[in-house]
């Protein structure tokens, strides 16, 4: 507020330089909040536009600033900065409203102080983007979506993760690289032709693996069902453990969980495995998988420590020397030689 008052008397060639308390746009009084976050049609607002107080406009109008007005926002405490334009000058004095993603980029909590500086930013020619989730790949026409989404942006800053809303879904996209590259790593995207390149989305590898797993799972076990292998395993179990148990208190005995038959150890326990009567020339490989002994999954468990423990004495020892001597002798009570010594 002090800075705001002082700025009224500054000369026109100086920069706009002010500190404000920041709040997310959703905390704005009125209905605009959502739109500032993700862009709304009727207002045509953009994603990296902030809402400044009217005094800022008053001050800016007295300075030599280039249009469109672009600002650098800095969180001095966290040494983080990003860039953006201004949407309206309707905020309460001393406050600035940010889209939520900008606040998280700057590592700001609502009510923190943010440093706002008016700045010039060169027109961008190239950006490289990395979607932060693989569901970005589900969009059929990336070009159209990005064109309409980036229309709402005025600047792109390297390493920012911005959000766009499409089809009711929020997509987070990171800016990997910008050209031309000034030291700040920021370009203006207003009225420019932009070449856009994409990095593989975060989690793409895992996504592929999951797809592969799904594929493997989908082709798995056609024969296993056809020859009713699991039923045969159960049948073998039935023949080894015939009959049921009953309890004296009349409660039901727990039945064996049928899902347990999926391991080979169980098969080995069967005295007489069921025959697998298939015609000659039929090869079946769907037996339960048993990893080789050397692998990690099969590390033998440590032998439980039986009859291990430490002796303790109720009586506190008089001195350290004696106490130590006592402990040894009590620990090895069965060793007569030691006791004598």
């Amino acid at each position, binding site marked *: 507020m002090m800075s705001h008052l002082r700025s009224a008397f500054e000369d026109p060639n100086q920069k706009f330089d002010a500190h404000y308390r920041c709040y997310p746009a959703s905390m704005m009084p009125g209905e605009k909040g959502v739109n500032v976050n993700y862009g709304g049609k009727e207002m045509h607002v953009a994603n990296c536009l902030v809402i400044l107080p009217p005094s800022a406009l008053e001050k800016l109008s007295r300075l030599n600033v280039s249009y469109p007005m672009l600002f650098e926002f800095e969180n001095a405490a966290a040494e983080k900065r990003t860039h953006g334009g201004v949407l309206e000058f309707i905020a309460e004095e001393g406050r600035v409203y940010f889209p939520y993603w900008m606040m998280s980029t700057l590592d700001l909590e609502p009510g923190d102080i943010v440093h706002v500086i008016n700045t010039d930013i060169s027109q961008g020619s190239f950006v490289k983007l990395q979607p932060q989730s693989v569901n970005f790949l589900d969009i059929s026409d990336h070009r159209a979506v990005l064109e309409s989404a980036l229309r709402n942006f005025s600047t792109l800053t390297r390493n920012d993760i911005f959000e766009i809303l499409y089809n009711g879904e929020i997509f987070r996209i990171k800016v990997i690289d910008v050209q031309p590259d000034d030291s700040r790593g920021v370009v203006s995207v207003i009225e420019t032709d932009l070449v856009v390149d994409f990095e593989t989305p975060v989690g793409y*590898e895992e996504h*592929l*693996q999951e797809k*592969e*797993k799904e*594929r*493997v799972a989908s*082709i*798995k*076990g*056609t*024969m*296993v069902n056809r*020859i009713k*292998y699991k039923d*045969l*395993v159960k049948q*073998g179990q039935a023949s080894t453990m015939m009959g049921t148990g009953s309890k004296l208190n009349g409660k039901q005995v727990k039945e064996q969980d049928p899902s347990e038959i999926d391991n*080979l150890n169980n*098969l*080995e326990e*069967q*005295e*007489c*495995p*069921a*025959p*697998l*009567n*298939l*015609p*000659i*020339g*039929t*090869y*079946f*490989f*769907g*037996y339960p*998988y*048993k*990893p*080789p*002994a*050397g*692998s990690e999954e099969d590390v033998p468990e440590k032998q439980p420590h039986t009859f291990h423990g430490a002796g303790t004495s109720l009586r506190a020892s008089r001195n350290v020397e004696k106490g130590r001597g006592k402990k040894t002798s009590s620990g090895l009570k069965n060793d007569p030689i030691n006791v004598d010594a």
Partner: protein
Amino acid sequence: MIIRFRSRMGMSRAEFQPTDTLQMLKDYVLFNVLKNQYTPENVSLCKDESDMGTPCSQVDEKTLQAAGVTHGNMIFLRLGSPRELPASTPVPPGKEGVAEVEISKDNALSATNSSNVASAHVAQDNIDDALELQDGLIPRSATPFCRHGPKGMCDYCSPLEPYDENYQRENKIKHMSFHSYLRKVNSNVNKYASTQSFIPPLEEPYFKVKEKCPSGHPPWPLGICSKCQPSTIMMNLQPFRIIDHVEFASPSIVDSFLNAWRRTGFQRIGYTYGHYEPYTAVPLGTKAVVEAIYEPPQVSEADGVTLEEWPEEALVDRVAAACGLRRVGIIYTDLTDDGSATGKVLCKRHADSYFLSSLEVYNSAHFQSKFPNPSKWSQSGFFGSKFVTSVISGNPNGEIEVTSYQVSNVATSLFKADLIQPSIDPDRMLVKREDKSRYVPDVLYRYIDEYKKQVSKNAKPAFPVSFLLVTLTDGFPEESKPMFAKHDTSLPITIETADETGRLRQLAKLFDHDAVKNGSLSNFPIILLLAQLSILKEDDMEVFAKYAMSPTEENEKNLNTRESYQTLLAVLYSSL
């Protein structure tokens, strides 16, 4: 002057004059050396071992001097038909089972098996005949214990018999080769240098109740006696293996076979076609060289594969025979991706689980009894089988690997007697229950129990599959010389998917002279497809296959004289 004669019958020498004619020498050989046991056509006079010589029937009236025979010369006598090769050269592929070898008591052959006189006239595979002529002795170098000169020999350095136990232990040979085993058994049964009696040393196990029991009781199941009932079956590890090694002529044979799994994730099965050769890594060893894999009609699934009816079985075997190949075994994939997306596969088959599942052993026993190995040393005329089973699965490092097995003779006999049955546990085989159709003798197996004691256990109802397995080695040659230039296991996709006329056009393109030089025809599925057109005559198939595999001018000339080949060319070119 003295002239020496060397033959399978041994050495002899005779006095001749330089003015004597070759005719006189021939007569001497036939009547004095060979005791008139050979017709002149079957005896060739050769200057050295590699020389094919001239048959005695074609000897002219030259004098010995004119023929260049001087004092002390050695003349080799090649006996039998001149086409028969000496034991030291490998057998040409694909001729197995053609020549009927008759060995009678009189012309007992080389020194080691002079007493081995087979009673039956069995057409053995050529490889077996060739290996029988080798002595198979394992040479040893001089030891510190030797107290003789460099040309001397003593107990410490004399060559070992091929079945020497110490040698096997030192070289970690788990199963000795079949021919080593045969020598061992034969030396126990038949005495050296006695040509009077011959007992076939080998016997295939027979587990059925003997029919026509001489003791006069009603036939089984009404009556049984100790003479006709099969004795207790004791399962041991088979000490020998008929085939020692499986060699894939080129890695791309297996690679191309794997493509089906790589594309779909479904398992695949195929028959391996190849030939047999001596395997020098073990004494008297035999290896099966796989030249092609043929994929018969089948239903592939992710966890299994089923062979379907194969109407073209006879045709494929015939075409393979024309290429000089025969069915040597079966190969299938058991591959499951481990899900790490690094191309690794699960290691399903290892010492703790199983190597061949009971079902696979059962199938292999079927195939091995379908393709028996003719042997004149066996009472039945057959002994074991040369059919091998190769599995492509993951090794403990997750890599794709081929391992080959045979099942033991006991396994095939159990299968033939219908005594075993695969179980749902891959590691255990069931012994069937006795009923009216089969008599089940006691089946025992020995193992070392938890107290490190050897115990025998009744194999009923189930016993470990490993008792029926014989492990083979396998690999690729250091210098691959595959018969076929191309190793596709299925037809190229352009031909496979084309319609009838398109297919003819595609085939015609392959007959372009330059393309043939590049081996466009040297591909088993292509040769097979051409055979399926049934334009080429059966007799011409062999000439054609020869040309396809080695397109030399001589082979081409041979082929061009064949009428059916010209018809084939005319049909193909008309489609262009």
